[in-house]
């Protein structure tokens, strides 16, 4: 009886261990499969990252190669011409700089003031939520719509014509939501106990905003503003809609002058049937990319400096 029981027990355990072995084999297979999926997924993601990067690198490389041969002093300082070889980008380059300066001058004070109102003054009400909703929605409106608005409001109703001022106002509207949002984030990052410290010392709300909140958020605001302006630099659609010049033989002299801008110049040259003009467009693109790179580098540097400065907060 006992022996049989032992026998049974043995065979049973044997069967058990066999099953366990089998089980562990299955488990191992499952693990291998899981690992394989893991790796394959990572690899797919890697490809998904690299494919667009490669295409982008190819595009930029191609543009730079055909553009660099055109870039020289005569190209930078030259005026448009019917002949590709003697055409330059000077009016467009100057126009872009004027446009950016002017857009910044309009959008920065407006945007910062709106953000200060929303962050520091507005009480939570339907009115504040309405403004917030609009700011968020405006950020998603296609730029060509802003162009149409600019055409109607600034060019026609206000009678500014196809001028530098009309262009700058239109681009200001375009980047205003971005400036407002960036500034609000910057203001939010100033700890409330510093506001309280200022108020408890007998500071008025205005003086605390001017002497504590803004100085502490200024570099973050500037970073946001630079990124916003970098977006505006590359815009062509709204400028085309308001009727900015693509062929301009002079430098804009005042706010109501006609103007051109780099993206418009590029657009106009790309449309030409002659291959030489496409090289010109490449050259202008390289210049535009350089300007953008300078802006972005400045923004990155400012952000870095701000992180260092605010380590003690």
């Amino acid at each position: 009886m006992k022996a049989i029981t032992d026998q049974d027990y043995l065979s049973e355990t044997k069967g058990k261990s066999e099953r366990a072995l089998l089980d562990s084999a299955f488990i191992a297979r499952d693990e291998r499969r899981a690992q394989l999926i893991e790796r394959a997924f990572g690899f797919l993601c890697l490809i998904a990252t690299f494919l667009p990067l490669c295409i982008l690198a190819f595009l930029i490389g191609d543009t730079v190669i055909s553009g660099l041969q055109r870039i020289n002093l005569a190209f930078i300082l030259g005026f448009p011409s019917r002949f590709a070889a003697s055409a330059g980008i000077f009016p467009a380059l100057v126009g872009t700089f004027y446009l950016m300066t002017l857009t910044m001058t309009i959008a920065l004070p407006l945007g910062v003031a709106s953000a200060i109102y929303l962050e520091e003054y507005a009480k939570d009400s339907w009115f504040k939520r309405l403004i917030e909703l609009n700011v968020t929605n405006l950020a998603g409106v296609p730029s060509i719509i802003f162009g149409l608005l600019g055409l109607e409001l600034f060019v026609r109703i206000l009678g500014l014509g196809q001028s530098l001022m009309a262009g700058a106002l239109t681009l200001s509207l375009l980047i205003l939501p971005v400036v407002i949002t960036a500034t609000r984030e910057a203001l939010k990052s100033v700890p409330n106990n510093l506001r309280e410290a200022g108020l408890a010392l007998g500071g008025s709300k205005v003086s605390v905003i001017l002497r504590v909140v803004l100085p502490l958020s200024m570099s973050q605001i500037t970073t946001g503003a630079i990124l916003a302006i970098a977006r505006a630099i590359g815009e062509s659609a709204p400028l085309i809609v308001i009727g900015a010049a693509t062929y301009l033989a002079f430098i804009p002299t005042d706010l109501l002058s006609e103007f051109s801008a780099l993206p418009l110049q590029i657009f106009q040259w790309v449309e030409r049937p002659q291959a030489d003009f496409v090289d010109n467009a490449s050259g202008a693109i390289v210049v535009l990319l350089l300007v953008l790179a300078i802006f972005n580098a400045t923004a990155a540097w400012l952000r870095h400096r701000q992180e260092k400065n605010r380590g003690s907060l």
Partner: protein
Amino acid sequence: MKQHATSTMITNNLSVRYGNHLAVDNVSLTIKSGQVTAIIGPSGCGKSTFIRSLNRMHDFIDDVKVEGAILLDGVDIYAPGVDAVSIRRRVGMVFQKPNPFPHMSILQNVLSGFSFTRKKAIKRKEEIAEKALKSAALFDEVKDRLHAPSGALSGGQQQRLCIARALAMEPEVLLLDEPCSALDPISTARIEDLINVLRTNYAIVIVTHNMQQAARVSQVTAYFLSGKLIEIDETKKLFTNPSDQRTEDYITGKFG
């Protein structure tokens, strides 16, 4: 130095509401100059809310309603027409967490109160700063680096800088909202010594979680519970022979 000896603050049936929540419930007490009034009580008993109503710091928070009166030298600071900014200049405040302005130097921090006001062209700035830093027992530690950023100081030094900043404005009343809760024991001891020295010239109110601290620094102690003032008495008497059972339960550690 101005004469502050007569400055007193009296709260008459003071109640503070956050929306529907009654945080301070019908509190009447007197804060005298030349002594330290400690406010103790468990978390959420309304002691911070109470002290913040003494210099109108609630003005900036939506939904806070202050009822009753707070008299500063006989004038209700919540009366219509009273300028809250001028009240805050007379009633200085130091907060729980040291909060020097990180973008200003030590010297700029001490004088920051003046930069908020229109009296920017004050004379003898260095003199004022030196006096305030000496009053806050910080001068010797920072005199060689007045232009260093305030972040270079330790937590305790930063808190004394905040006290110096408040003292530079020559307030009559000094409110301390748990000024040592973020500090180590040595820094705490230095600030307690400082409070002891300062009390001769100011009416000082200190909110504290720490009963030993209240016993060490104050002459009068008020015990708050659920927004109500349970008992206010001389500190010695309140801690040795409280007249209310609830106070005794708290100071003997039965709860809280």
